[in-house]
């Protein structure tokens, strides 16, 4: 590890050169001691390597005229032609606007939902009731959007529950799925319904980690449950919330294809056609791998920029992701 020393900046006082080898040894000892933990993290590392880092290299096809038979190595390079194609696509701004709008709604309404639910779960006194409810809330997460989409269509059909209730009050039947003004609401609500329970898991873990003595002290000071929630639970959860928020913002433009595709009809195209559904038409139906990769890259760049901005902001108050 001699060259490791060379890499240290001159004048660096953080790690005294003499102690470096000793430090390294200590980590080796540490690794040997906790080898089980390292083994446990291995699948995660492999997962990220194989499914996240390796495919990153595939992004180069965004700058190629990718031919599936020739492969990445022998396809010809076209520079920014694919990006030009996207930005001159007639409906690109419509698609981008729809994506951004729905993403914003999902962030504003969808992001706080699991936090609120986790706080509510936390207040349930009866352990059995809490467990049962948690399980029930987790369930929809495991349904595919094809199924959930079917349920949504059914609930909102002319014979569906919503229209039945409207009928009791003498209201006319509304075919919600073909009215564009309801589309985004339906997307956000169905999204919350499906994943809110799943989203509470991390928050519940954070809540469970709060030191009980804080609550005890608050009770001594005469704080009721509400005050405890506002002044203890929420602030201690805040770092967790922040991290999840930042992770969320990194995927801002990636709404996921399944949900929208299964809820979309031609009558709601004008508000519901998003980047993913366009990619589906261009990529899967026409085999334009390069163009769709370019779009994916564009989404990631936007996501990264947002992440960077919000992370900077976060660091001013709390700690950010890095």
């Amino acid at each position, binding site marked *: 590890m001699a060259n*490791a020393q060379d890499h240290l900046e001159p004048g660096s006082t953080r790690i005294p050169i003499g102690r470096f080898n000793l*430090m*390294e040894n200590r*980590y080796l000892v540490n690794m040997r001691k906790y080898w089980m933990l390292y083994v446990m993290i291995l699948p995660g*590392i*492999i997962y990220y*390597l*194989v499914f996240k*880092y*390796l495919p990153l290299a595939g992004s180069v096809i965004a700058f190629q005229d990718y*031919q*599936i*038979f*020739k*492969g990445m190595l022998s396809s010809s390079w076209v520079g920014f032609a694919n990006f030009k194609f996207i930005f001159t696509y*007639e*409906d690109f701004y419509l698609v981008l606007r729809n994506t951004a709008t729905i993403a914003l709604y999902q962030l504003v309404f969808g992001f706080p939902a699991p936090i609120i639910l986790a706080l509510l779960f936390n207040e349930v006194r009866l352990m059995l009731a809490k467990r049962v409810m948690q399980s029930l809330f987790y369930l929809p997460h495991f349904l595919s959007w094809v199924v959930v989409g*079917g349920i949504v*269509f059914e609930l909102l*059909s*002319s014979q569906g529950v919503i229209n039945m209730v409207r009928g009791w009050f003498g209201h006319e039947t509304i*075919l919600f*799925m*073909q009215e564009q003004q309801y589309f985004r609401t339906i997307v956000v609500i169905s999204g919350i319904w499906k994943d809110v329970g799943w989203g509470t898991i991390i928050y519940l873990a954070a809540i469970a980690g709060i030191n009980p003595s804080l609550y005890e002290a608050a009770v001594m000071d005469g704080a009721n449950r509400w005050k405890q929630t506002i002044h203890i639970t929420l602030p201690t959860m805040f770092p967790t919330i922040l991290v999840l928020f930042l992770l969320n913002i990194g995927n801002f433009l990636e709404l996921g294809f399944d949900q929208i595709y299964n809820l979309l*009809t*031609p*009558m709601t*195209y*004008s508000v519901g*056609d998003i980047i993913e559904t*366009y990619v589906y*038409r*261009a990529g*899967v*139906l*026409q*085999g*334009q791998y390069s163009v769709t990769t370019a779009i994916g890259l564009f989404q990631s760049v936007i996501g990264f920029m947002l992440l960077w901005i919000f992370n900077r902001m976060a660091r001013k108050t709390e700690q950010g992701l890095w």
Partner: protein
Amino acid sequence: MMKPVFGKSARIFVLASLLVVSILSGCSNNGEKPAASADGTDKNESVTVKVFKSHMGVGTIPDNDNEHVKYVEEKTGVVYELVTTAPGSEPTEFLNLMIASDDLPDILRPIGGIEQTLIKQGGALALDDLLPKYAPNVWENIPEEAWDIVRSASPDGHIYYVPKVFLVPERAPMIRQDWLDKVGLPVPKTTEEYKEVLLAFRDKDPNGNGKADELPTSGREFGKWMDHLFGMYGVAMWEGVPEWDSYEGEIQYAGVTKNMKAAIAYIRELYEEKLLDNETFLNKGDVWQAKINNNLVGSWYHLPANLRDRYTAMLKGAPDAYVVGMPMPKAEGYEGFVTQKSMGEPEWMIPTVAKDKAEYSLKLLDFFYDQSNDEFIRFGIEGQQHEVVNGKKVVLPPEDSRPIALGMRNLTTKEDMDVRIKETIPEDMQKMVQDVFAVSSADARRIAGDGLPNTVYEGFPDIQSHKLFQEYLTKIVIGEWPLEKFDEFIDRWNKAGGEAVTKRVQEWYAKVKN
């Protein structure tokens, strides 16, 4: 504190990823190996041919010991190994994956436009010389016209695939005869009469359950399966997708014609008066089917060959149900027809990498096009594909536990259809189905754009997916937009690439015509 550890793991990461990369590239290099076994030294040994076919339905994949496989081997010297989409994966993606991983089958049925990717990138084998030599039955049974269309689909005019040929119309407008009897009206002859019939269906409770729940006619999401309403106005429609046909002397996208505007105006009227199921554009396939099965729909457009299941379900609720084919009602000033597409869709192709086995792949294919094998192809092996009842062979319905038998023939003539009806439709329904076919055959017309390759859409995914058309169609029909918006659609369609695509189609048509 953590920094050195990260540094170290970063180095491990790099090493590990290098390892993975080398493993992956190692895999793809292996792809070239199997060719060697093809021209096996021992001539008596059978050759294994990998056949890819998606949408196989239920059943197990047959192994080498399967009797069906054995029988085919005996006759052709080829052992077929059936490859199909992995459960839960999308067939087009699966095919793409096979291409990308250099793991192509020896003969495959392309889907999702993949044939053009193969042809353009030199991945498809030209079959012009091989077909007459190794697959004479395929070569002779498929009409010359179909081969011409296949030639027109490639830039160099070669034959790169064996086309699907369907010489009878597959689809038909149908109407409930028992409902007509109940409301006391004859089968409608004009669009006005059709509307009257629908009105009567709506108001006179033909299903007799005392509820006004009848949906006089219905269709599916995206405007699918309501082609009869377009066909009356001479619009070439294929499952809700406008096709290319001759309008005013030139081949045109049916979606932007006067005929289409007239059809939409009529459909809009039907919708407004609740004669067309108001949930048409929200109906998923199964919902639509259930509505027909449950005696809620009076008139619809579908495959007569599938009528058996619909009808069996109907009989449960309406013992006197009867379905007849409806001749296209005449619209004033328009020439109505049932759209027929007969040929050109790709059915089988051989990848260039499987060149060495092409001879055997074609021999296998030829087996299925050889008329003398008809009985075996239809009935397969006793106990697996058919059973003998009263000395007659009866085809078994597909089941999870039984092996699938490979079928490769996709050539349907009138005779084939008659035989198929006799074999797959119960006796008491045969006449009904035959009559429906007879009515739709009389109205059927092959459209000018039959066999059009999808390369004409290249670079214009929204034109290919008919997205713009679907948006305007649905919004105008449900009354959210006025009919006048249709002119805006024509304009936008042309600008979004429709004009360029039309030019390509006209060039293609000129090529085919000569």
